[in-house]
């Protein structure tokens, strides 16, 4: 660690990193010890000192809406072009009463086309996955709601793609734009979704329009980043070749840069799709139709079985789209001999169209291929419901979870939480600064100081600390699970793939669904909150541990083998140190996920920022809503900056570029 910071040394008048860390931490500890003698304002910021930030923001939003008539513009967009697009897809997919009044297409046609696309992209297995997903959706009687969801995503995803691409190009082209947009993207990625649900409703009208906008905003950041990355990575020779061919600037962009950045751009597309799907349930609060709304309704009438089925549908759709888009990234064009007729060149297009037409006609005669009625559907909701509730009520299960839950809550979580709340505000901030300085260096430490001071003056300190407590507890717990799991899985290709599949599933399975069983097992308590975050945060930890370990260059492990290391020695002294920077990325993602999930956990019942945010959904408290969102974002960004800076330094040190 000390050597990692050598480059910082000269910056601070001869004091070593360790010494500075000790000094800052020492002051913090002193403040804690002196707590009984401290004046009140050094323990918590007094109410009177807290600026009315929320009111200022409200004034600002009023200005935007009333004086600038910004809402008029956005409303025009929402009710004009956006509504038109949404109407179009909704009519085609689910038969909404909108132009062009020809939908809905029979489910069998969609399934058939999905199978053909799957075959084209990845052979029989993918065809089965693509076709199978839609057959399942139709057979369990969720066709209409699934199509409602997809009809919005079919507009939101391309919108996020286009905007992300344009912003990405702009950021690549102009350095100032890049510098300006980077922090905005960072905030967008960390701000809780509740914060932009409300503006989406106000500016874009409740319903699919607001749903589409909120989804788009959520999905844009990775597209921007991947586009910029891809364009920056185009090999200089290709650029020079393009210039030497006499391309104009525009020709360079459209025919040289963008096609050459294809891979990164498509990875961006994949991310857009996955993030869009992640929003399916959350946007149901503001009018997103379909699976999400249905899921919430099912949960609110305590139908675990049906919620589970909907969850399965969402996972299937997500996995299908994920695998297909990834296959598309890897898909390279194959050549045809000269003189190949067009129907051979476009074989798959022809088959897809043929399949579409075929099923369109057949469905006119065989009703069940058109729509699966409620009575015909194979939904097992009731039985699954019984099975889940039965399992949760088994004495042994209850006793075990009851024991774990009670232990955690009484001896671990509550004491930890009370300890954090006990620390005087300035000491808390100093501790955070010391930690960030130790890990990340000067820059993150300065940001940490500013960010946490802002949080302290926002008037929501205690709730912020409780939020942080849940996040930290969950991430620590999931380290105990995720890292050993990753180490185990990395030992063989077979297990790595299996565990990664579990990771994919856990990540796309709507977290709402396991909230209820979790409550049934652990009650409405912090254990439930922390454990449901753990399910989510273990995924990146496992994934990046596997990736990090498997990414260790073969020569190094071979060198270790030849030096006669045991498996354990090899792991501890060769593989783990080299994998650490990658694992840090996973750790960082775990923290970001935790901040995301802790807000959702408000649906269990918490006393943190998420609870207050949920409360703002009711009204028009835009200002308060933003202040709360900002607090979450600032805390998350502190972690993000620190860990990424640490990983960066570590990588340089190891010469991993």
């Amino acid at each position, binding site marked *: 660690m000390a050597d990692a910071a050598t480059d910082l040394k000269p910056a601070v008048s001869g004091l070593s990193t360790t010494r500075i860390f000790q000094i800052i931490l020492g002051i913090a500890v002193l403040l804690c010890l002196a707590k009984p003698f401290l004046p009140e304002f050094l323990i918590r910021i007094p109410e009177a000192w807290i600026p009315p930030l929320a009111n200022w923001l409200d004034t600002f939003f009023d200005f935007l809406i009333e004086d600038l008539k910004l809402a008029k513009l956005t409303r025009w967009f929402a009710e004009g072009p956006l509504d038109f697009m949404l109407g179009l897809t909704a009519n085609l997919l689910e038969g909404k009463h909108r132009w062009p009044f020809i939908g809905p297409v029979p489910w069998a046609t969609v399934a058939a086309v999905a199978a053909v696309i799957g075959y084209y992209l990845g052979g029989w297995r993918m065809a089965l996955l693509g076709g199978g997903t839609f057959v399942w959706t139709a057979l369990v009687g969720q066709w209409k709601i699934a199509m409602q969801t997809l009809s919005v995503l079919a507009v939101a995803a391309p919108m996020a793609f286009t905007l992300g691409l344009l912003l990405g190009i702009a950021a690549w082209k102009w350095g100032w734009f890049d510098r300006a947009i980077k922090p905005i993207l960072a905030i967008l990625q960390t701000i809780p979704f509740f914060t932009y649900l409300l503006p989406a409703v106000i500016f874009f009208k409740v319903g699919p329009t607001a749903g589409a906008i909120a989804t788009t905003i959520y999905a844009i950041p990775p597209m921007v980043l991947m586009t910029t990355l891809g364009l920056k990575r185009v090999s200089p020779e*290709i650029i*020079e*070749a393009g210039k*030497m*061919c*006499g*391309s104009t600037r525009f020709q360079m962009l459209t*025919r040289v840069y963008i*096609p050459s950045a*294809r891979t990164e751009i498509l990875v961006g597309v994949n991310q857009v799709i996955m993030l869009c799907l992640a929003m399916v349930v959350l946007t149901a609060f503001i009018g997103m139709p379909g699976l999400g709304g249905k899921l919430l309704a099912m949960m609110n009438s305590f139908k675990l079985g049906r919620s589970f089925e909907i969850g399965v549908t969402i996972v299937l759709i997500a996995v299908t789209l994920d695998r297909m888009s990834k296959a598309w990234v890897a898909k390279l064009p194959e050549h045809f001999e000269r003189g190949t007729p067009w129907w051979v060149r476009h074989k798959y297009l022809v088959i897809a169209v043929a399949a579409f037409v075929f099923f369109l006609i057949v469905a006119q005669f065989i009703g069940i291929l058109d729509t699966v009625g409620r009575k015909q559907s194979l939904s097992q909701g009731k039985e699954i419901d019984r099975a889940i509730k039965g399992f949760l009520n088994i004495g042994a299960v209850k006793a075990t979870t009851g024991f774990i839950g009670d232990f955690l809550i009484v001896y671990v979580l509550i004491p930890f939480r009370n300890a954090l709340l006990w620390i005087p505000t300035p000491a808390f901030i100093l501790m955070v600064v010391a930690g960030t300085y130790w890990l990340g260096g000067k820059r993150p430490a300065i940001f940490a100081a500013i960010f946490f001071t802002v949080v302290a003056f926002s008037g929501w300190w205690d709730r912020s600390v409780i939020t942080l407590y849940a996040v930290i507890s969950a991430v620590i717990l999931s380290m105990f699970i995720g890292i050993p799991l990753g180490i185990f899985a990395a030992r063989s290709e077979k297990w790595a793939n299996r565990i990664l599949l579990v990771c994919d599933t856990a990540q796309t399975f709507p977290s709402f669904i396991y909230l209820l069983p979790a409550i049934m097992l652990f009650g409405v308590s912090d254990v439930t909150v922390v454990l449901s975050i753990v399910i989510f945060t273990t995924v990146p930890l496992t994934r990046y541990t596997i990736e990090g370990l498997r990414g260790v260059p073969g020569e190094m492990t071979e060198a270790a083998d030849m030096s006669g290391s045991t498996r354990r020695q090899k792991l501890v002294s060769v593989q783990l140190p080299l994998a650490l920077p990658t694992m840090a990325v996973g750790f960082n993602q775990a923290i970001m996920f935790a901040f995301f999930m802790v807000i959702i956990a408000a649906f269990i019942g918490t006393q943190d920022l998420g609870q207050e945010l949920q409360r703002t959904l009711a009204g028009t408290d835009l200002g308060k809503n933003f202040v709360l969102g900002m607090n979450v974002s600032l805390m998350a960004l502190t972690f993000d900056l620190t860990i990424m800076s640490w990983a960066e330094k570590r990588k340089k040190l190891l010469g991993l570029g």
Partner: protein
Amino acid sequence: MNDQSPVISCKNVWKLFGPNPKQYLSQMSAGRTFDEIRADGYIAGVHDVSIEVGRGEMLVIMGLSGSGKSTLVRCFSRLHEITGGTIEVEGQDVMALSEKELIDLRRSKMGMVFQSFGLLPHRTVLDNVAFPLEMRGQDKHDRRERALEVVKLVGLEGREEYFPRELSGGQQQRVGIARSLAIEPDIWFLDEPFSALDPLIRREMQDEFLRLQEMLGKTIVFITHDFDEALRLADRIAIMKDGAVEQCDTPDQIVLNPQTPYVRKFTEEIEKSRVVHARVLANPVNGASIEGEPVRAGHTILQLARQLVDDPREELPVADRHGKLIGIMNRQEALDVLLGKD
């Protein structure tokens, strides 16, 4: 503009990399060395280079990596903006061209081949070759026809619909060559075109290249780090080090009269007799007696080795390929080249 005027002419060209190169150059004292400039925080990619390339000539720029050879050639086509000096191409000052004029110049007069080919991965062979034609807005039918022609010229017939990754390195470079020739450029830049290829393929491609050059007669600037390749292909060689040209001369002269210790190091390992031609050793007749069969001016000393050893004459007449006498060659001098002095 006549045939005698150089196609590319550069005078006192500087290319500095660093925070504020123009200003630095204008204030810099004359004769500052590469290392001194580096100490000031600048890198001299091109260090006061003056060089000319004649019509139909093949100039090979030779140097190790980092010597500035690629930078120099990119200055010719203004892929790099130079910091000081002038570069004229066909009498036009390239630095004075507007963006549009520059694009026109590249579209009509220049072709370039790259070390790692620089092919567009998403386009077929044919589409890659047709790319420069597409850029200048030629219609689809025309450009297809022209592209097919060039593809055939480089011997890739039947592979038109392949994608670059489906081809071997040698084949990919053929595509690169075809692309650079598609617009029938007058000036042809080749930036280490064969360096990424296996030795055997490299040799084959060099032969192929010589064949093409014989057929097309372009003005060529060829970059290499391989001295053998330079000797094999060049009309003239410019040897670069630290951004500056150490020596620019014909291969024979470079081998016979290396002017700096750096150049000499390269020539030391070289079998001079393979490089030096009889023409170069031919002295004026000056009334000396001429006896017997002349040797061909275009033959290397190595090719003449047996005759040189067996021939009893002290002075051998040298004739060009039409049989016209151009001078006499001292046998001992030639043997020195063949066997080495002392």
